[in-house]
């Protein structure tokens, strides 16, 4: 298995291709995030550092907003932990695919896992074996675009382009739809989809958006799991 997973340029380019929709989606997202953080009084270097070290869209947006409102550092960090705790689910799901990787390689891989990278990895690895060059290319190119667009946003905070004029703000949702679709022909997967969506919607309307993502994921997975048991192993 290790032999078939050597460094390989064509696998790396395949990862670049897989990262393209993420990159396109990160441009308006990162741009907006850079603007918010610049308005919070952060320097371009600090915005670069945050995009490089934290690399979590929602978390960075919220941090910018909280800094503007004068929140304490501790409350910002705790909020970040709550908002970003969903990442635990992502690397748990990906673990079986990369179980044969070394711990250091897994840890480096974990560093750049976002909602979008996870969406692409989980779809790709379910159909193909985990490939080092492809996996890291997806992560590196996505992260690079995130950093660049944050910096661009921060240095042109006055020059706000109306990305909503085009449909670019829809890129990541379209990516999610395209990745979900092939799985929905499976009834338990469809049940997980509906349960996850409705649960998250309820939390969202109660202003608990981020708790809703975790609750929707867990509840949806349970419903999918038990639905599968009923279908394949009788009642």
């Amino acid at each position: 298995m290790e032999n078939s997973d050597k460094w390989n340029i064509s696998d790396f380019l395949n990862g670049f291709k897989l990262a393209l929709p993420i990159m396109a989606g990160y441009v308006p997202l990162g741009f907006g995030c850079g603007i918010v953080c610049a308005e919070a009084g952060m320097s371009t270097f600090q915005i670069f550092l945050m995009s490089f070290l934290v690399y979590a869209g929602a978390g960075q947006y919220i941090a910018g907003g909280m800094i503007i409102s004068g929140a304490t550092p501790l409350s910002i960090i705790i909020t970040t932990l709550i908002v970003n705790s969903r990442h635990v689910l992502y690397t748990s799901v990906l673990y079986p695919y990369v179980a044969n990787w070394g711990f250091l390689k897994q840890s480096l891989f974990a560093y750049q896992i976002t909602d979008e990278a996870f969406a692409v990895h989980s779809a790709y690895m379910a159909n193909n074996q985990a490939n080092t060059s492809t996996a890291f290319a997806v992560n590196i190119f996505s992260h690079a675009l995130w950093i660049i667009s944050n910096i661009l946003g921060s240095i042109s905070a006055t020059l706000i382009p109306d990305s909503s004029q085009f449909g670019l703000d829809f890129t990541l949702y379209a990516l999610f739809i395209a990745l979900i679709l092939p799985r929905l022909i499976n009834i338990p997967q469809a049940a997980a989809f509906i349960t996850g969506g409705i649960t998250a919607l309820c939390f969202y309307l109660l202003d608990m958006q981020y708790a809703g993502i975790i609750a929707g994921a867990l509840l949806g997975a349970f419903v999918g799991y038990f639905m599968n048991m009923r279908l394949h192993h009788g009642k």
Partner: protein
Amino acid sequence: MENNPINYIYFIIIGMAVVTYFSRELPFIILKGKKLKPAIVEWLSYIPVAVLAALLIPALLTGGSGKTIDISLSNFYLVAGVLTFIFGYFVKNLFLVIIFGIGLLAVLRYLY
């Protein structure tokens, strides 16, 4: 910390980086070297669809970032989302589906 705004920002960045990386790395630490039971792997296999639904459905039904459900033709996010689902059912190419979704939303906004 508070009376030094520069340290204040760096403290926040480092703290955020630590807790975010912790969330990403934790499973690899806990599961290190372990082989997951098939039942757990089965359960985990439903997480991607469930979590993407959790990210997608509220956004589509509330029109992006609204705070109320808007099921109408004036909710372009919902219209574009539903039509992108239908388009993707027939055209199974990832890039075409994404381009269709973006293009459709742009056209809806341009026309209405």
